């Protein structure tokens, strides 16, 4: 109390020295905000005087002060995350301090949370008929989070963050409620402080994986909260391109106080779990055995299995460190938040000379400069100025500078880990100690260097003016600018072992890309109370976006000698460049009517125009209607039944995706020829092209029982995309090879988002709260409009994801064995099994694995053995569960698990190759053993028949039986996050001059529980991409020689002063 008086006096002093103020008519409100059960102070709670722009936040002791309140009657509202909002009336007299305390009750529901929805107007969640999810970063302070992708991962049902692989700096794909488009991008649109930002991807120059996400450029330390709109019903007021959902990021604005510094230091240890199988092989002759013996240094005999571990020998423990300093505060009319952050991570990929040692050369051989590294510096600043009580300006900006280095990887014949996994012990030699059969040696591939440097800056200017008590004007303008430069380099004579034949004289590829996105957003909001019980909020606005991208690339090969690394140093060069501009404009209107405080009805409409629409199409309209009804606010009868809170809601709305910038036009592309510059067919064109329309409805409820300690959230949603843009392949013989977009498809999906939260215990020394979420997703392509089905990867048979009518988009279709037969083995190519006698006769001699065929099924009887349904790469059920525990007053423990289950299948291409491929595979222990039996002259016919039977049932894979023994069930549970934090006692911290100090230990991807036998059920052949297309969208769930997702342990110290 003494301290409060001191604060009050200092404010009073401030007030005295400022001229021109009518002090006599102003008073002060002060008090404390505590938990109503435990009596614990609630620091950081917001206390606002309703109707005026006056308020404060409670300090560490839960105390607040609001000076300069005009004398009279006021309503004061206290609000804190995880607690029910409360308001009280108070009477203020001039020159006096009035005490007003609040006791808030805990709730696991967040109906009173204020969100900025599709209308851009702050609204309490209770009034919205559609779901808006929020992620508050102060609840994630201890979690092992380095990027925004990790911040979103495993939090919200229906919001799926798909990592795709474990390379350092790799970004994740984001899918909200599955896929809403068959051809355009399925990534949500991202806004930061009201400005649209580039949330695309970096360049893919190293084979498919390791691609950065531009979302990770945003400084996580500067984020206050993230709002996620999941579907068309919610996203209507964002128009074209919002059908995949919207992610809105809001940065910290500071608070009215002296400068508060926060310093955080993190040390991170990263390692790959050993999920990659060792390399097993056997010598088939004495000469081969002798060669193996001389390389390995121990005696090898023919027909005996030898095991080596080439892939895992390339890894060691990676190290990362993060330093972050931020300062926030504010004075009269200004608050600010400034933050700087630096992260340097050198991942676990570390090939060394000793990895290539042989018995006669134990020191090994030199290796190249391929590395997995991520270095990122971030700066953000946010200044909030309120010169008068009617006007508010805000400028916020963020700048990131990233450098990422990635080794060649994934489905890439020059990938370092890829080739290491295909090493065969029987092929080793002095200059090929990892036994590569084709393409290059592993050591050679370490000479390929890939790097990307990116600068990303956004600026957002916003102003808010209260014209009258009821009418507010809002304007936001901003620019997001990205500049990316990637270099992919092969040095002169990188074929150091004489194996590779590709660009042996060296090559260099330089890619440049820059993107500017301008945003202009203007709104007017009119609030009116009428007829005592009705309140209305009307918003009208205009939004305009301009996106411009410039790209250029140069490729050169053949250096004159070693040491030269520039493009101009090459003997022959090619260059390309491109330019793209998209303009999007929209007008919207929304009316929300509330009856008392328990019934709200909202209706809105948006009109969109876009430069990408065909010439015969003008604007698209997107309507929305929603209702929210809170029975427990209407009457207390439900309370008597034990239901403390109940809200029912429903919403329906439409949104849509526009086609690409020039998809409507027939074009010819300039391409050179030996006779000079030429023109070749480009795009077929379609003047009727228009956007696709995604219509969604959702119904749901929030219910709280046990006085809101146990909360349920449930939503059922249903979406239909009509006039879906399908990439239609017109006859190849027509001369235009590109697929042309046509509005001929239909895609339907439905699902549920379920969330349960239980604040089980809240005592002084122990608090426990547990949570679980589940999202159910079902999608189907109901109509492709007569266009032929599309396959990810085109004619490359190894990827089996199809966009086909009657299946989920991206479903795996491929070959299936007739497992009902005792011996599904065919010797003469008629797909009919031979008898046991015939088979024994055949196998009385040694046989190769290609001398017999499997008996295949044709389930739909159409003569095509490669279109059987084998599962889909998106699970029926996904979600998370975990708990937060506070114990011994200062300790906190949090754990989050993520799971995926239900018709969830991954194309385990890694093992399909390793089990089956004659040249570069057959090096897993089991496959090698079976092949040994088949080829060994000592085996009996019976042994060989059994080995052959096992072969077709488990090991035979790849073309021409694509999909066989490859598509595997991949249900998993992953222990995603663990954190243990200790808050140093306040007086101990104060001795060091600190406000607070926290020590924590955290882990990420700690354990994986799955029956999937491949490298990682979350791996994918390609990682994040910008833009749409069949591959970017539906080449998914393909585990193709990638890096497993690493385990990380983080130690951090966070101090405030």
């Amino acid at each position, binding site marked *: 109390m003494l301290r409060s008086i001191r604060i009050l006096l200092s404010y009073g002093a401030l007030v005295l020295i400022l001229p021109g103020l009518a002090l006599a008519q102003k008073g002060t409100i002060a008090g404390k905000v505590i938990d109503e059960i435990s009596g614990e102070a609630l620091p950081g709670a917001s206390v606002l005087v309703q109707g005026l722009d006056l308020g404060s936040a409670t300090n560490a002791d839960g105390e607040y002060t609001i000076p300069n309140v005009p004398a009279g009657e006021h309503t004061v509202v206290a609000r804190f995350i995880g607690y029910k909002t409360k308001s009280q009336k108070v009477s203020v007299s001039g020159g006096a301090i009035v005490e007003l305390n609040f006791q808030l009750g805990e709730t696991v529901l967040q109906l009173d949370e204020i969100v900025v929805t599709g209308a851009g107007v702050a609204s309490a969640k209770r009034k919205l008929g559609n779901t808006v999810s929020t992620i508050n970063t102060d609840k994630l302070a201890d979690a092992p989070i380095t990027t925004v992708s990790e911040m979103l991962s495993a939090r919200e049902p229906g919001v799926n963050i798909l990592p795709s692989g474990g390379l350092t700096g790799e970004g994740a794909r984001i899918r909200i409620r599955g896929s809403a488009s068959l051809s355009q991008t399925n990534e949500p649109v991202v806004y930061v402080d009201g400005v649209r930002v580039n949330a695309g991807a970096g360049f893919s120059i190293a084979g498919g994986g390791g691609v950065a996400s531009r979302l990770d450029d945003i400084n996580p330390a500067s984020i206050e909260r993230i709002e996620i709109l999941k579907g068309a019903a919610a996203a209507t007021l964002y128009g074209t391109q919002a059908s995949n959902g919207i992610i809105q990021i809001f940065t910290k604005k500071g608070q009215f106080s002296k400068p508060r510094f926060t310093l955080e230091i993190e040390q991170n240890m990263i390692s790959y779990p050993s999920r990659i199988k060792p390399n097993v092989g056997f010598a088939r002759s004495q000469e081969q055995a002798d060669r193996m013996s001389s390389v390995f240094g121990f005696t090898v005999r023919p027909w005996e299995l030898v095991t080596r571990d080439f892939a895992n020998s390339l890894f060691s423990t990676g190290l990362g460190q993060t330093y972050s300093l931020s300062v926030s505060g504010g004075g009269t009319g200004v608050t600010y938040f400034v933050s700087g952050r630096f992260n340097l991570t050198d991942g676990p990929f570390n090939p060394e000379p000793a990895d290539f040692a042989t018995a006669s050369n134990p020191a090994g051989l030199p290796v190249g400069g391929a590395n997995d590294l991520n270095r990122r510096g971030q700066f953000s600043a946010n200044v909030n100025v309120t010169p008068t009580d009617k006007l508010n300006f805000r400028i916020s900006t963020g700048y990131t500078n990233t450098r990422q280095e990635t080794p060649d990887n994934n489905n890439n014949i020059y990938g370092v880990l890829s080739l290491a996994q295909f090493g065969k012990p029987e092929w080793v030699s002095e200059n090929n100690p990892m036994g590569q059969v084709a393409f290059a040696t592993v050591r050679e591939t370490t000479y390929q260097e890939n790097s990307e440097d990116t600068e990303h800056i956004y600026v957002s200017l916003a102003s808010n003016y209260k014209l009258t008590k009821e009418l507010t004007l809002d304007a936001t303008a901003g620019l997001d600018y990205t500049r990316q430069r990637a270099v992919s380099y092969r040095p002169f004579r990188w074929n150091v072992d004489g194996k590779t034949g590709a660009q042996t004289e060296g090559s260099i590829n330089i890619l440049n890309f820059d993107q500017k996105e301008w945003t202009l957003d203007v709104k007017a909001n009119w609030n009116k109370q009428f007829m005592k019980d009705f309140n209305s909020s009307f918003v009208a606005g205009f939004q305009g976006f301009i996106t411009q991208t410039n790209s250029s690339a140069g490729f050169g090969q053949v250096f004159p000698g070693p040491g030269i690394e520039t493009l101009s140093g090459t003997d022959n060069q090619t260059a390309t460049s491109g330019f793209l501009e998209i*303009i999007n404009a929209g007008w919207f209107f929304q009316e929300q009517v509330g009856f008392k405080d328990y019934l709200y009805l909202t209706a809105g409409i948006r009109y969109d125009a876009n430069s990408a629409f065909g010439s015969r199409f003008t604007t698209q309209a997107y309507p929305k209607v929603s209702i929210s009804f809170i029975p427990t606010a209407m009457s207390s009868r439900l309370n008597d039944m034990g239901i403390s809170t109940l809200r029912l809601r429903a919403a329906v709305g439409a949104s849509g995706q526009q086609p690409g910038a020039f998809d409507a036009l027939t074009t010819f592309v300039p391409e050179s020829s030996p006779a000079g510059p030429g023109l*070749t067919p480009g795009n077929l064109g379609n003047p009727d092209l228009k956007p696709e329309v995604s219509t969604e409805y959702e119904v749901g409820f929030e219910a709280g029982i046990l006085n809101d300690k146990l909360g349920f959230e449930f939503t059922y949603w249903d979406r239909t995309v009509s006039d879906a843009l399908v990439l239609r392949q017109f006859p190849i013989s027509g001369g235009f090879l590109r697929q042309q977009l046509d509005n001929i498809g239909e895609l339907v999906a439905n699902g549920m988002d379920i969330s349960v939260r239980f604040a089980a215990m809240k005592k002084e020394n122990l608090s426990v709260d547990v949570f679980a979420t589940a999202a159910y997703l079902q999608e189907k392509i109901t109509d492709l409009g007569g266009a032929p089905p599309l396959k990810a990867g085109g004619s490359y048979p190894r990827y089996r994801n199809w966009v086909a009518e009657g299946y989920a988009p991206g479903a795996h279709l491929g070959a299936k064995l007739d497992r009902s037969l005792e011996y599904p083995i065919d010797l003469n190519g008629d797909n009919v099994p031979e008898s046991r006698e015939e088979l024994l006769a055949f196998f009385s001699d040694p046989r190769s694995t290609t001398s017999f065929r499997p008996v295949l099924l044709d389930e739909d009887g159409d003569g095509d053995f490669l279109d059987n349904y084998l599962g889909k790469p998106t699970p029926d059920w996904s979600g998370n569960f975990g708990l937060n525990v506070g114990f011994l007053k200062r300790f906190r423990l949090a754990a989050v698990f993520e799971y995926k289950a239900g018709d969830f299948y991954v194309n385990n291409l890694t093992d399909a190759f390793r089990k089956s491929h004659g040249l570069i595979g057959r090096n897993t222990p089991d496959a090698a053993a079976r092949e040994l039996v088949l080829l060994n002259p000592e085996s009996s016919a019976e042994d060989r028949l059994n080995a052959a039977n096992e072969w077709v049932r488990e090991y035979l894979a790849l073309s021409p039986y694509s999909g066989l023994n490859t598509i595997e069930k991949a249900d998993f549970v992953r222990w995603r996050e663990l954190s243990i934090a200790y808050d140093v006692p306040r007086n101990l911290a104060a001795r060091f001059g600190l406000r607070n100090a926290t020590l924590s230990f955290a882990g990420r991807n700690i354990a994986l529980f799955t029956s999937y036998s491949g490298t990682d059920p979350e791996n994918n052949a390609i990682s994040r991409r910008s833009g749409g297309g069949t591959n970017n969208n539906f080449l998914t769930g393909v585990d193709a020689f990638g890096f497993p997702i690493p385990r990380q342990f983080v130690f951090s110290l966070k101090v405030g002063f």
Partner: protein
Amino acid sequence: MKNRKKLYGNSGALSSLLVVGIAALFALGSMGCEDPLDVENPNDLLEQDLQNPTAAAAIASGALRTTSVGVGYCLAPLITATDEVTWIGSRDAWRELDFGNVAFAGNEFTDNAMKFLHEGRWTSDNAVTILSGFKEKGELEDDNILARAHLLAGLTRVYIADWFDDWTFSDKTEPAPNLGKANMRQVYEDAIAHLTAAFNTATDDGLKADIISLRARAKHAMAIWDLLNPAGSTPANGFVDAGADDAQQALALMGSNDYRFQLTFGSGQGDNDFSWQVNGRRELTIGAIPVDPISGSEDPRAAAAVAEFKDSGSRGSTDWAPITVTSAAEMHLIIAESLYAQGDTDAARNHLNVMRTAAGLPEITTEDVGDMIVYERHANLFIQGRRLNDMYRFGIQDPMWQTTSDAYTQPGVLLPITDAELQSNPLIDPNR
């Protein structure tokens, strides 16, 4: 949080006006412009831009590029089925071709390759149409450009008919039915018609040499087609008498026995996929160089072709080996075979010996002129993609062909219409 001080007077009203003003300006500005949604596309040309006569040379060059790339792509699966090339890499579909399974419509390499030949065919035909239009209006600055377009239209047809059992000629989004296996001869006839038009339009001698030599090759190949269709059996007599007159005219225009008409590739000018598969990716390898039966050593002409194919040093890339379309050597072979088919064995022998002596090889003295014609074709046309039809008509089998394969059981069978076309063209009738 915020403090209420009236320090800035009426700035509030001014600010509100500013905000509204910006919005109004933007709205007005957007209404005032022609069409604010009109964006520039400096990357490509629209179809109507091709009606500009200054685009003539580029239109013909585009046809050259797409045709060259298409031929390079289709060469790979076709040649893998012969005894000239073997698979040594990781993509199993090549193995199927090695085994002689040529007619599988789902082979990923045939499926991918034929797309580019379709693009080349359409682009060449489109070039002929547009450039003929310019010529009619007197807007064509150089007749040789039109001649080149006709040449390419003929060239694509020769390769299509040489390598494929069936084909379709659609136009952009308008599908056309397939010709049908029995009607593929028409493709040679159309090729010859284009080449005739090309010859009559061209004014450059080098160009005329290319054109007439290709017409000789087309007539010769058409006669082989008559022998091998319908497919299913080895002909009793594989030699044909066709194209000799054109071959003579070509030799006169060529002026040298080393003359070759080649499709070339280069940095930014199109890649030869077959070259990449052998030289770069090392998925395929060229088999043994034919051994001259008389001298007993590797044939220098085939060896030279392989050396040129593999030479990447000076060109710097593994993707740019040239493809020989016709050569003076081929003209001699057509003439020699013609003489032999007419029964004039001695004249045929003499003609072959002219070529052999020029290459430093010992003369043929035996009566096995027929066998030597077969050998000379193998050696002189090595890795040009001509071997498969020769193997069929002369009853030669690749030891790698499985006895159940298409090539083994049906001599004359060529690459099919593949899945990508079958799925995208509703008018294809596989039974035609």
